[in-house]
């Protein structure tokens, strides 16, 4: 409070006072925002493209919130039975829940309703997909190491909450396919030893399908409770990110003690706002052009009806795949039954997965003994063991995902379903081992090679009169130059911009300066 920040020669007094000065002054008198605000505008965001992956998730979430609010205006979260007499004629006169009827109405009778409903669904798929990709980046570059273990845990929690909320949302329309998914979820709850039957009847408000209580319950979880938790955790995620500052890849002028990149305002602001628009544009276009979950073709859920080729959304696929390839083990004795064939893949496996993910930073610390702070990222090839383990894990979950479509694969490739299932029972374990070993080998080879990962300068291949080929280095490409400049602190004041009359626009926009 007592210390004033000294300014250099480009003092504020030289600037003409603008409405911004007076408005900011009013706010600063009351909240004291100027200093912290300016520091925040100087916040540096590394420019590497892989740092934008988390933003895909963030902006998908923004789209989810906006489209979700729209959908709640028309969706009726009720299992009460009604008879449909709407636009879609093949269902005319069919008895269905109000949830299903209103979902069909959103698709046919509400203007832009179908695009927004589909956009919501695509955004959910992309949300979880981009979380996974973002998490891969964090994992393979070692960004979860001290001091960022807590943020890793928050991120993993977000992944699993997003998956749960995706499943809840998928269940809400109460169509034939989603109802089947709820039935399976009920069986999974039921399978838990000791408390399973109590959990099942409590969560469902009775024996399945639960006297109409499950749709309203899923609804409030899906639209209020889980989104609130997710939004809060995203807030914590970003707060920790700002507090700890970004990691960065090693490179020219980048050290453990600085962050190099673009300042929050205006460069990053313009880029990221544009990115938000582009993500929204892609999702909106998908929503209008690519059909997803056409519930009107499925009909309402009826507990004794079933369609073949039922799969959950992709992010649940690894669980469904695990359920399919699980051998038929069930323990029965001492007056009790433990249905391992469903408890193991449905409860224990995802539980262990989440525990393993959450504790990975500490497991790695234990294994490597590395407890130092790290702000510079690893190149994946420099950590062959971690990279191999990560690749093997990815392969494992990808194989499980593929196993969730055994019937579709069998049909597509015209092979026996039994053969496909047995194949998966083996390759789910074999493929990850091969992938892991292969990755390890590649990493070792890359570590030995020179120039890997360096920015390549274009060369010109010239053929001489005698037919010999020689390569000539070309001039630096645009943008190459600034990588060789020493990074500078974000200037507090820009001299020569204001007051000398000739310029007066944004720096450098109108003046063409050739790079050396």
């Amino acid at each position, binding site marked *: 409070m007592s210390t004033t920040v000294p300014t250099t020669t480009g003092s504020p007094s030289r600037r003409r006072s603008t409405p911004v000065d007076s408005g900011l002054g009013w706010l600063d008198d009351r909240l004291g925002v100027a200093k912290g605000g300016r520091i925040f505008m100087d916040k540096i965001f590394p420019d590497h493209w892989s740092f934008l992956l988390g933003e895909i998730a963030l902006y998908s979430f923004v789209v989810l919130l906006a489209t979700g609010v729209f959908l709640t205006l028309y969706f009726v979260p009720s299992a009460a039975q009604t008879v449909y007499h709407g636009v879609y004629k093949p269902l005319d006169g069919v008895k269905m829940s109000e949830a299903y009827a209103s979902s069909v109405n959103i698709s046919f009778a509400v203007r832009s309703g179908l695009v927004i409903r589909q956009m919501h669904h695509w955004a959910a798929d992309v949300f979880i997909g981009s979380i996974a990709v973002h998490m891969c980046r964090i994992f393979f570059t070692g960004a979860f190491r001290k001091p960022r273990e807590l943020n890793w845990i928050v991120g993993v929690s977000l992944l699993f909450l997003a998956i749960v909320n995706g499943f809840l949302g998928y269940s809400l329309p109460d169509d034939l396919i989603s109802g089947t998914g709820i039935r399976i979820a009920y069986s999974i709850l039921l399978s838990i030893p000791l408390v399973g039957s109590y959990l099942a009847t409590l969560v469902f408000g009775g024996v399945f*399908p639960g006297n109409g209580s499950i749709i309203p319950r899923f609804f409030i979880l899906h639209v209020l409770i889980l989104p609130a938790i997710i939004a809060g955790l995203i807030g914590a995620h970003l707060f920790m990110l700002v507090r700890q500052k970004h990691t960065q890849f090693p490179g020219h002028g980048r050290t453990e003690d600085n962050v190099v990149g673009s300042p929050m305002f205006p460069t990053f602001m313009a880029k990221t706002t544009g990115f938000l628009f582009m993500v929204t*544009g892609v999702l909106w276009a998908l929503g209008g052009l690519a059909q997803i979950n056409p519930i009107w073709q499925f009909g309402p859920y009826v507990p004794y009806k079933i369609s073949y080729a039922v799969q959950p959304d992709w992010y649940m696929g690894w669980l469904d795949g695990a359920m399919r390839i699980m051998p038929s083990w069930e323990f029965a004795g001492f007056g009790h039954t433990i249905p391992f064939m469903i408890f193991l893949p449905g409860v224990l496996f995802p539980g262990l997965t989440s525990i393993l993910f959450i504790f990975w930073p500490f497991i790695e610390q234990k294994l490597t003994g590395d407890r130092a702070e790290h702000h510079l990222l690893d190149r994946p090839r420099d950590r062959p063991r971690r990279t191999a383990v990560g690749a093997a894990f990815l392969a494992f979950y990808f194989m499980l995902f593929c196993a969730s479509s055994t019937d579709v694969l069998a049909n597509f490739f015209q092979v026996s379903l039994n053969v496909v299932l047995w194949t998966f029972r083996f390759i789910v374990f074999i493929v990850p081992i091969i992938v892991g070993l292969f990755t390890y080998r590649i990493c070792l080879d890359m570590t030995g090679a020179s120039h890997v990962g360096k920015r390549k300068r274009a060369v010109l291949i010239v053929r001489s009169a005698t037919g010999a080929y020689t390569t000539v280095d070309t001039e630096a490409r645009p943008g190459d130059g600034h990588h060789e*400049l020493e990074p500078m602190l974000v200037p507090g004041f820009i001299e020569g911009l204001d007051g000398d009359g000739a310029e007066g626009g944004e720096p450098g926009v109108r003046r063409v300066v050739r790079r050396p």
Partner: protein
Amino acid sequence: MSDVTTDEPGDREPGGLAEEQAPSAPLPLASFDDPHLQPLAKQPGRAEGVVGILLVVGLLGFAAYGAVYWVGGQPQVEGISLGVGLFSFGFGLSAWGKYLLPQGPFMEKRHKLASSDDERAAMAAAIVERGGMMVKRRSFLGGILGIGGAVMGVVLAFPLLRSLGPVPAKTFDVTNWHKGSRLVDNLGRPVHVADLEVGGSLTVFPEGYTSEEAMAVDQTILIRIAGPDVEVVTEPSRATWGPDGYLAFSKVCTHAGCPVGLFQHQTLQLLCPCHQSLFNVGQGRPATNVFGPAPRPLPQLPLYVDDAGFLRSQAGYDQPIGPGFWERTTT
């Protein structure tokens, strides 16, 4: 409490972000001609034109969407118009940021997040010592506080958990099939022995139970694999359960509870569409689970034909139907 001083060392100003900027550092100054402040684009004028076009395309996309909406809407036109509009608009803005704004590289310094040892000690002392003052010689009060909190937690769980639904009791062990229940289809029509052809299948329920909850539990798949007067014996103890070529099994899969709605009449198998559990049915084949994750055969419903020729159940299921659970005793 405010009298308890905790010996705060140093005189660093409190606050979050401001604290990180070293107070003595002067704000850096840059010349307008500094290469750090130049745009990335080689020809900024050209880039400016591209950005302008992109923003205009975005604007046109927005307008097109508005027009489509106004005239009644069409999902694909809505998708392409606003999709292209948003994308182009964002593309322009991003390109503006990427090519026309100062590209640096800029940097900020990273400061140690951890507090000094003294500050840590002070905080720990505040917790331990002040907390110690609170309960010193008053552990009795602390005990009451703890017990009260625990009781409160348990009591609050009543409405939060117990109100959610009934306790299961024996609900998982029973269905509405009883001795003499007449088999009806989903519309309540009783099934006559002449109704199904050999190779036919039908989903049936006990007459009189039409709620969704009842039908979810009671659903039974009735198949016919032989003509009249053929008694289908799936296993010796079930000699009379399959009259006139008829067999009935619970339609709830013993794996995850999906309806086993898929009857292959040539190979005499029932297949669950969800996780592909396969059950053999027929003479000497009591819905044996032969493939996939299902751990048990489907329970069989004993049938008989009444005097009027309608199918009825001799008794209910002899075991709980559907997937396993902790309290399930029959195997």
